[in-house]
C-alpha cells in the first residue's frame, strides 16, 4: 500500500515541482541565499558543515512546505473513490493511517535525499575541503532531518482525520504550530549560553536546529572567547555582510540525549499515526456527510441517511410550456455575475463566521485609526482567508469547469467577476480603515490600503488557477501575512499597515501582474478564450 501510494504521487507532475523545490533549496544554500552563521563565523565548507547546513535547511523548510505537499493523501483516496474500495477490505484503520504516514514520509525523504545530493555537489563546487566524509555529511540529514520529516508526515495524516484541521483552517493552524515547534526550546537554551545544552532541549528540538546550533556555538566559543553566542539560519542574508571568519566544524557529537531525542520524534510520528486511526472515518459516507453538514440532517429516516430522499414523482411536465427567454442579453450582466460569485464565496459558512467578520468590519470603523490600521486590519484580512483561497480553484475542485468554460465569454466575464468579488470581500471586512484614511486625506495610506485590497484576491486567483487547489494560497498567504503585515516588515507588507512599511506602487503592480498570470492560466485550461 505504501508503494502504490508513493508511485501514485511520484507519477504526477506536481511531484516534479516538489523535487524542484528541494533542488532550489540546495541551490539557495550554495548561492548564499540561505545562510548559516554564528555572528561573524561560518564553518569551512567541509562535509560536516555542509551536511549540517543541508540538514537544518531541510528540517526547517521542508517541515513547513512539506506538510502542505503531503497533506492530501487521504483526500486523494476520497476524491478518486478508491477509498470506498479500501473500506470494504479487511484493512484496519491503524494499518491505513500508518501506511499513509509512511507514504508521506517517503515523499519527504525523497526531498531530503535530493538535498543530500546537493550537499555533495556543493562541497566540490565550493572546493574549500575536497575530502568527502560520508558519515559527517549524511548523519545530520538522516538522523536530524528524517525524524523531523517523519513527524511532519504523521501530523499531515492526523490533520486529515480531524474535522476542522482537515479543512483550509488546518492549513492556517499548522503554520502557527510549526512556528511554535520551530522555536520550541530555543529561549531556554539561549539563556544558558555558556552551559551545556540541557537534555530536555534535545527532546523538544523538532528540527534539530537547537542541538546543532548549540554544539556549533560551543565549538566557536572554544576558539574565540569574545564570541557572544549569536547564531542564525536566515534567508536572503537580511542585507548583512557575509561572515568574515571561518572555523572548522567537525560534526555533531552524538551523545545519548541527542540520539534519544531524535528517536523520540520518530516514535512520536508513529504514535500520531496511531492516534489518527481513532479519528479516521474509513470513508463512511454517513460520517463524511455529518462532518460536512452545516445544518441538521434534512433527510427523512434518521441520521444514517447521507442523501436526500428522492422527491415523489409528479405529473409529467412538458418542455413545450417553458417560457422563452428574451433575445437581449442582461444590461448589467457583469454586475449580476459579481453578485453571484460573491454569494458563492460567502455561502455555507457557520453563523459565527459572519458575526466575527461583521465585528472586525465594525472595529475597523470605530477603533483609533492607527490601531485599526496596524492591528484590526491585520485580523480583518486573515479572517476571510478560506473565502479567498477558493478563488480560481473552485471550478476544478467542484468539477464545474465544463459547465462554465462552455458558456459564452466565460474568460472575459467570469474570471474578472471572481476577482472583483474577492476585492469586495476585502473592502467589506477592512473597508472601514480605507474610508477613514480617505476622510483624513491620507492618500498614500489609502493607496496602500487599496493596493492590498487588490493584491490579496489577485494572489489568491493566480495561485488557485495554476495549482487547482486552495492549499497553495492558504500556506503562502498565512506565512506572508505573518512575516509581513503582522510584523510590519518593510518590503513585504502588502497591507500597508504603517507608513514605514507601505509600498503601494509595488503591490499594485504585483496585483496587476498576478491578474495577468491568472488570466493566462485560465486561458491555458480552456479550449478557446
Amino acid at each position, binding site marked *: 500500500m505504501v508503494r502504490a501510494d508513493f508511485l501514485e504521487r511520484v507519477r504526477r507532475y506536481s511531484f516534479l515541482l516538489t523535487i524542484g523545490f528541494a533542488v532550489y533549496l540546495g541551490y539557495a544554500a550554495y548561492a548564499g541565499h540561505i545562510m548559516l552563521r554564528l555572528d561573524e563565523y561560518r564553518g569551512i565548507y567541509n562535509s560536516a558543515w555542509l551536511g549540517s547546513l543541508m540538514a537544518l535547511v531541510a528540517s526547517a523548510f521542508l517541515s513547513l512546505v512539506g506538510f502542505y505537499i503531503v497533506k492530501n493523501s487521504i483526500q486523494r483516496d476520497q476524491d478518486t473513490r478508491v477509498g470506498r474500495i479500501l473500506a470494504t477490505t479487511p484493512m484496519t484503520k491503524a494499518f491505513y493511517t500508518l501506511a499513509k504516514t509512511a507514504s508521506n514520509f517517503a515523499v519527504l525523504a525523497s526531498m531530503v535525499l535530493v538535498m543530500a545530493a546537493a550537499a555533495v555537489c556543493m562541497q566540490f563546487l565550493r572546493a574549500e575541503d575536497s575530502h568527502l566524509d560520508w558519515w559527517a555529511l549524511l548523519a545530520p540529514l538522516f538522523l536530524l532531518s528524517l525524524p523531523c520529516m517523519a513527524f511532519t508526515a504523521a501530523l499531515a495524516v492526523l490533520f486529515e482525520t480531524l474535522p476542522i484541521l482537515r479543512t483550509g483552517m488546518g492549513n492556517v493552524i499548522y503554520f502557527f504550530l510549526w512556528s511554535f515547534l520551530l522555536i520550541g526550546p530555543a529561549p531556554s537554551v539561549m539563556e544558558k549560553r555558556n552551559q551545556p545544552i540541557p537534555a530536555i532541549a534535545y527532546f523538544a528540538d523538532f528540527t534539530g536546529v537547537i542541538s546543532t546550533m548549540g554544539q556549533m556555538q560551543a565549538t566557536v566559543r572554544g576558539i574565540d572567547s569574545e564570541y557572544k553566542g549569536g547564531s542564525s539560519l536566515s534567508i536572503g542574508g537580511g542585507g548583512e555582510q557575509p561572515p568574515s571568519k571561518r572555523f572548522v566544524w567537525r560534526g555533531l557529537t552524538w551523545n545519548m540525549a541527542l540520539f534519544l531525542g531524535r528517536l523520540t520524534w520518530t516514535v512520536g510520528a508513529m504514535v500520531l499515526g496511531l492516534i489518527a486511526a481513532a479519528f479516521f472515518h474509513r470513508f463512511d459516507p454517513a460520517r463524511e456527510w455529518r462532518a460536512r453538514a452545516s445544518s441538521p440532517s434534512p433527510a427523512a429516516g434518521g441520521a444514517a441517511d447521507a442523501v436526500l430522499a428522492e422527491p415523489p414523482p409528479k405529473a409529467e411536465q412538458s418542455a413545450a410550456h417553458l*417560457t422563452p427567454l428574451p433575445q437581449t442579453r*442582461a444590461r448589467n450582466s457583469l454586475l449580476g455575475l459579481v453578485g453571484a460569485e460573491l454569494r458563492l464565496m460567502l455561502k455555507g459558512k457557520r453563523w459565527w463566521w459572519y458575526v466575527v467578520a461583521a465585528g472586525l468590519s465594525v472595529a475597523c470603523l470605530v477603533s483609533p485609526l492607527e490601531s485599526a490600521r496596524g492591528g484590526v486590519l491585520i485580523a480583518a484580512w486573515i479572517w476571510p482567508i478560506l473565502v479567498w483561497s477558493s478563488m480560481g480553484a473552485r471550478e476544478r475542485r467542484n*468539477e464545474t469547469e465544463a459547465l462554465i468554460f462552455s458558456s459564452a465569454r466565460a474568460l472575459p466575464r467570469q474570471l474578472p467577476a471572481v476577482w472583483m468579488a474577492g476585492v469586495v470581500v476585502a473592502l467589506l471586512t477592512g473597508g472601514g480603515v480605507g474610508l477613514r484614511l480617505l476622510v483624513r486625506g491620507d492618500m498614500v495610506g489609502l493607496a496602500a490600503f487599496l493596493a492590498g485590497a487588490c493584491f490579496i484576491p489577485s494572489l489568491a486567483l493566480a495561485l488557485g488557477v495554476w495549482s487547482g487547489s486552495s492549499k497553495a494560497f492558504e500556506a503562502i498567504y498565512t506565512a506572508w501575512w505573518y512575516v509581513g503585515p503582522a510584523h510590519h516588515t518593510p518590503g513585504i507588507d502588502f497591507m500597508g499597515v504603517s507608513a514605514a512599511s507601505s509600498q503601494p506602487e509595488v503591490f499594485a503592480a504585483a496585483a496587476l501582474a498576478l491578474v495577468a498570470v491568472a488570466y493566462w492560466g485560465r486561458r491555458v485550461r480552456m*479550449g478557446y478564450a
Partner: protein
Amino acid sequence: MGTFTECCAFCIHGWLAGGTLRLSIERVSKQYGRGPWALREFSLELGTGVLGLLGPNGAGKTTLMSILATITRATEGRVTWNGSDVAANPDALRSALGYLPQDFGVYPNLNAVEFLEYLAAVKGLDAVASRKRIDELLNLVNLADVRKRPLGGYSGGMKQRIGIAQALLNDPKLLIVDEPTAGLDPEERVRFRNLLSELSGERIVILSTHIVSDVEATATEIAMISQGRLVAHASPEELLRKVEGRVWEWVLPSAELNAARQRYLISNTTRRSDGVHARVLGENPPSGAQPVPPNLEDAYLYCLSQHRAAAVAA
C-alpha cells in the same frame, strides 16, 4: 444482401432541409499529447432533429462532445456553427449551446435555485427572466420540492437532473447531452426521452450514449463511432434495413452457449424453459436458426463488428 461497405458506407443525408441551424464537423481529429488519436477524420453535417451518437466506451464520443462544446480544441479539422468557424468565434456557438457533460460537479453549499441562478449569471442571462425559467425547469425535472436543499445532499440521479436543467437554461439551439441517463431510474429515463423528443423540433440535439434504447426512443438520425472514426450515419430505418435478413433466433442448450459465442456474433440471450434463445447476427446462420426482424441493437452490434473486422483486415 448488402456488403459491409453498403451497410457502413457513408450514407450522409446532409441535413440540408434543417432551416437556418447548421452544425458542420469537417474532418475533425484529436490527439492527446503524443498518445493515440482519440478521434480521426470525423465528418458530419447536422440540422434540426436529434442525432444519436452511438459507440462503445472509449470510442471517442466524449472527445467529440468536448470539441463541439468548445471545451477542447481539435488537433485537426474544423467545426462551423451556422457558417461561422468555431475556432475563430467560439462565443457564437456558446451563446446557443446547452451542454450536459458526462462528468460534472456542483457547488455543495448552494441549493438548486442558487446554482441555476449562478449559471444563468455566468451565461449572461437576464436575472428576472431566468428566475421564471428556473422555476419551470425545476418543475420539469421534478426537483421543485427540494429546490431549497443544498446540492451536497442530492443523490446522483438528482444531480443529473440538475445538470439537465442547467443545460436548458438559455433555451439552447444546440443541445449536447453526453450520457444523460446515467444515474437515472427507469421512470426518469422515460421522462428524459420524452423531454428530448419535445425539444427536438426547433433545435439540434446531439445525444451521445452507449445505451441503444436511449437512442432508439428519440433519435431521428444515428451516427455510430468506433475507435475514433465514423462507422455509419443513417436514419434508424435505413440501418435496420441494412441488417435485415442477417438476424436469427437460435435455441440451444445452455451448456453450448460459450462455444456458440466463440463462433457467432450473439447480440442477446434469453433463458427459457426450452433452452437459451440467442439472437445471432451474420450472413451464415447456425443450423436450426430462424430469421427474426432486426432491432437497433442488432444493427449497432453488426456495424461495429464489420468495422472492426475491416480494421483488422486492413
